[in-house]
């Protein structure tokens, strides 16, 4: 039975911590060997992605693996080949792991049920994005060492965010408190059932937060009238310079990227001293290396 990484819901704390420990060695450059040399890691991206795909690609290459990149453009997915057909075909090429992104929630688990190699979920619909959740938590773990007593505010379109769900599960497991905030159209109370606190008051969410994670706003939500205008969104829910000055002294700011500057976060904050955004990106490679090792 291969090990997969499908979701962070239910992942034991010890597993998360062992991935972190390994990722820390990658960050500090202490891993000298290339454990996946001669192996193939297949990237299957049914949804466009540059950042996550590049991060996995860099991670796999760093471990010595050959990377097979498969994207929708120029593939047979557009010809109606089903998800499972494609997954089985690529799996037949003998990769050690499939890194898969798909617009359907549950797609990664479905793929895992059909192949004999490891499956790493690189984002399934609105469900989870576990490598992002792990790298976000890892970034905070590096800074804090422990999550005890820490409160993390995740702000924005939580409803449609796989990043928010994965972060919630990882951070809760590690002992932090998580508060979700955003317009009620995008942050339903149901999330309380998953262990999050829910507030529609952004000051309440941010004032005693030790970390504030701003989610990327999908502009098509405007068309769904989830909020009135982008300007209003920025004023009410955005991490403005003014709001950032009122955060706790040591509070840090995260964003999974790519940033809509001046919309969910002001450029001065995204680029400011509190920001861990670039650290997230570089940690992303180390965490994904640890993930690929974990499943292989």
């Amino acid at each position, binding site marked *: 039975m291969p090990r997969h990484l499908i979701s962070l819901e239910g992942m034991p704390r010890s597993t998360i911590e062992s991935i972190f420990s390994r990722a820390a060695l990658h960050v500090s450059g202490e891993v000298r060997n290339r454990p996946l040399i001669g192996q193939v890691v297949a990237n299957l991206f049914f949804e466009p992605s540059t950042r996550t795909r590049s991060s996995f690609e860099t991670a796999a290459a760093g471990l010595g693996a050959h990377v097979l990149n498969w994207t929708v453009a120029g593939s047979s997915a557009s010809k109606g080949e089903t998800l499972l057909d494609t997954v089985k075909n690529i799996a037949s090429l003998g990769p050690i792991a499939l890194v898969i992104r798909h617009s359907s*929630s*549950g797609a990664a688990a479905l793929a895992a049920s059909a192949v004999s190699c490891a499956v790493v979920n690189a984002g399934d*619909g*609105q469900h989870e994005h576990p490598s992002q959740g792990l790298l976000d938590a890892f970034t905070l773990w590096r800074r804090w060492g422990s999550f005890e007593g820490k409160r993390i505010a995740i702000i924005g379109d939580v409803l449609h965010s796989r990043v928010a769900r994965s972060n919630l599960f990882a951070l809760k497991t590690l002992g932090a408190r998580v508060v979700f905030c955003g317009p009620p159209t995008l942050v339903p109370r149901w999330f309380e*059932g998953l262990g999050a606190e829910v507030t529609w008051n952004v000051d309440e969410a941010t004032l005693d937060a030790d970390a504030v994670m701003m989610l990327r706003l999908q502009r098509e939500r405007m068309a*769904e009238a989830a909020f009135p205008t982008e300007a209003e969104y920025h004023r009410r829910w955005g991490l403005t310079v003014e709001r950032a000055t009122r955060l706790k002294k040591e509070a840090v700011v995260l964003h999974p990227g790519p940033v809509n500057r001046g919309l969910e976060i002001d450029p001065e904050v995204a680029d400011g001293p509190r920001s861990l955004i670039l650290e997230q990106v570089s940690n992303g490679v180390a965490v994904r290396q640890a993930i690929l090792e974990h499943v292989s």
Partner: protein
Amino acid sequence: MSAIVLRAGRVIDPASQLDETLDVVVRDGRVAALEKPGAIEAGARVIDVRGLWVLPGLVDLRCVLHEQQDLDRALAGGFTTLLADPSSSLKEGRGPKLYRASALFRGSELAEVPLKAPPALSSGFGPATSAGLLRRAMQYARSLSVPVMVHAEDVSLTGRGLLGEGLTAVRLGIPAVPASAEVAAVATTLSLFADVGGRLHLSHLTCQGSLTHLREAKRAGLHVTADVTPHHLLHSDELADGYSIAARVWPPLRQKADVESLRHAVEEGLIDAIATDHLRPPAAEREPPFDLCAPGRDALATALADVLRAGISPTRAVAALSSGPASVFGLNAGRIVVGASGDLTVFDAKAGQVRYTFVAGQLLHGEGKAA
């Protein structure tokens, strides 16, 4: 046709409040006698049904029929009378007595109604494009004295939703449908009906809130009836755990509290009928992932067992699957009385399976059926 004696079964005919161990004699396609066990009928084929339930042939008010296989599923589930949904493509078939509901709408227009009035005009599994259209449809149907079956849904509230709103949908990241998508449409439909009159039947209700409106309308004396499906009685949204496509049905599965209230409403008779919503999409479309899977459920064959598994009492379960639906549209079916058509279902309650199905006295499902 030789006579048949169903020997010593538990005969349940909810419409006459009959529930006792009797022989049922069927002759010339009709129920000829109900007698104390031991009936002697010269030349009759005697089938020992001791320990089994002998029920009126079941009646379904909404099923999508495309192939003979769908009719076979119906017989396997003990159904002897079907009201096919307008989307059915099946022309001819062997098995249950077939009625057809005619479409209520064609796009955003009224649909043509056959000259020979159908038992009902139905909006099937989709709503009217506007309240104005629905009102005109009700007015028109009233002039023809044909009942209307309404699927109540406000699509502006459904959005891209696939599963009833709740923790399961949020956890799985499946777009959710708020209960108000149905409840608001039920309220609208009932107020149009109060205004226009005629005969209204509400299809596949799923939410507590809808039942509140239905109760109020009935109390006010409106001639409205309603059905629920076996699966909405049996399953909540939690069936979708693990992205099980069994939960991909339309209307969507709801919260446990809704399921409880539906069960209660069937038991107390607020709900008049259980309709199966039987629909088997082509296999290639009925595949995961969840959001790309066509909705539907192969429901006919297991309907009675499902309803009993949902905890509905035997008498109410049988009533809501026979005399209940028959009386909704005045179909001549759903009774075991002398002189009635020999449409009978013999059910093994222990196994949860239909053992024999007779249509007009002919054994069409079960051991020894006609080839």
